[in-house]
């Protein structure tokens, strides 16, 4: 946890299929995310953004390249699914486009379950879950089921869940796609606050250019190639000014 980098990828390559059906979804992608840094990842559909998140999130192993999370080299060869799963629950938080809450758990239980999975006693995990929900402004909806929450509230609960294990890294895939612009911006600002307050690295895949000023760093991806987005960064800087 002392490593200043939340994430470092090097030469990350993902190839699907082989021979004439081979598709290179990710080409030699390298990225460094500091603790507390909020990174936006832009790019058209099919550019490889989600593949990048799946590789970094230890869900889909890369064909080549390394992934280092919180100073720990994770993807440098074959690892057991159990190891990867344990590392996910201890170090990574996920937020996705759709509200990905477990439908049979209330808001607080959706957050609490992550704490329990990393071995916290039930009461401690619940207290922590309540604190996070309060901090994210949905504490009063803690005992509501996901279907009783609005889209924005659901995303806030998802963010709370992503924070419940005090992760080194939060990966968010188009978290505002289902929200209107106001609520979308609120969620993006939430990520920035969370990253700065908790020292968590955050990578957000987004199409929403209206909130780019929220991000510290912006990357673009096209045809599997990852590069810093100069034009977008300039736009963001201008928006901030």
């Amino acid at each position: 946890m002392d490593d200043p980098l939340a994430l470092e990828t090097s030469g990350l390559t993902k190839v699907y299929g082989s021979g004439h059906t081979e598709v290179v979804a990710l080409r030699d992608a390298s990225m460094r995310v500091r603790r507390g840094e909020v990174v936006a990842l832009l790019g058209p559909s099919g550019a490889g953004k989600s593949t990048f998140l799946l590789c970094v999130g230890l869900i889909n192993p890369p064909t080549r390249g390394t992934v280092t999370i919180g100073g720990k080299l994770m993807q440098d060869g074959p690892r057991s699914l159990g190891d990867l799963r344990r590392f996910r629950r201890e170090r990574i938080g996920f937020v996705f486009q759709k509200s990905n809450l477990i439908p049979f758990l209330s808001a607080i239980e959706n957050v609490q379950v992550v704490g329990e999975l990393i071995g916290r006693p039930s009461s401690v995990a619940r207290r922590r879950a309540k604190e996070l929900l309060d901090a994210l402004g949905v504490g009063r909806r803690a005992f509501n089921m996901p279907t009783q929450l609005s889209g924005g509230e659901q995303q806030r609960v998802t963010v709370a869940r992503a924070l419940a294990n005090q992760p080194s890294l939060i990966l968010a895939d188009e978290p505002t796609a289902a929200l209107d612009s106001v609520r979308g911006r609120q969620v993006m600002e939430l990520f920035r606050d969370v990253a700065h307050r908790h020292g968590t690295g955050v990578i957000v895949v987004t199409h929403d250019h209206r909130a780019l000023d929220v991000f510290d760093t912006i990357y673009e991806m096209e045809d599997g190639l990852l590069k810093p987005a100069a034009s977008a960064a300039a736009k963001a800087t201008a928006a901030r000014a």
Partner: protein
Amino acid sequence: MNLAVRDIRHSLGRFVLTTIGVGMLLMVVMGMGGIYRGLVDDALVVTRGVGADLWVVQRDTRGPFAEVSRLPRSLVDRIAAVPGVTDAREFVLHTIQREHRGKPLRMGVLGLGWPTDKGEGLPLIAGRPLAQNHFEMIADESLGLGLGERLRLGKDTYTVVGLTRWLVASGGDGIACFTSRDAQAIQFHEPGESIRLERQARRARADEIDFGRTQPGVLDRASGPAQSLAALPSPAISAVIARLMPGTDPASVQRSMSGWSDVTTYTGPQQEELLLKGSVDRARRQILLFRVLLTIISAVIMALIIYTLTLDKLHPIALLKLIGAPTHVIAGLILQQSLIMGVLAYGVGYLIGTRLFPLFPRRVLVSNDDLLRLAGIVLVISVLASLLGIWKAMRVAPNEAIG
């Protein structure tokens, strides 16, 4: 936090309905076992009730419960004289069907060896044993007769003086107890016209033979009551039951009667074994096969239900994998649901069964051993049923939660 309980709580209505359905199925499995036990118990209630140490039946037959056995009444005195025998009684059992209050009344007619046996050993729930050697009866409550009710059987009317519970024949018909004389009178009752026709036929036959023509007395006898004819036997009894002196070895008494060429003897346990291996055995095997089939069907249904419940949860399961839930948490979620369903269904089956079985026309006797055995089977079924769901859950990839 118990994820299985949370998921059940979330889809409570469907889970409850499914559990009730499975419970009803288990109730049927329970009931089939109970029907078998009831069948055996009903079959043995008479043999155990009469308390016989030895059954003496017609030579080379298997006794009154398996086939027709006819013995002369005089055999009772012969057996009573065998060393080691305390007392010997007639045993008469047959089934009749009459009409009573406009409905068919089917009953087993059991003859008690008056005056030594007045029915004191019967499971009386009301009334008293027989107090006179004619025109009284003790009826099983399943026959629907009340104390003091009068019933015409043959040419006589009998009064119900006692009521029993669960005294039924192996066919399930309630038993009514009479003195053996009355039981035989009911069995061999013939309408007056039939008797007149028989006498007429007898007279015609006597007229046609020389002996009849030369001996007028024979013609007179032929027109008289049957019992006055030496050539015609008195009504037969089904068996003779003997009680032995304390400490007497039944085998030794059997040996001493083995030289009699007109009878076969069985000890009490032998008679019970014959009864169970004979008329009850086929029903037992049939019920056993039904139980096995129902148990398999229950297992298949439970497996499908658990599998369907798992299919409904594939997205949450993928999500749990995504946030790093270990395999045992996910497998535990499915296994626990299966076990909870199995245990609750068993409870539902038991509760409904205990209220429903007494209303069945035949006795359903659910024993504790059978209940424990079924509980074990349900646990095994629950575990097996969850395997299909667990297998499906293990194949779900965490990235399916994202798509």
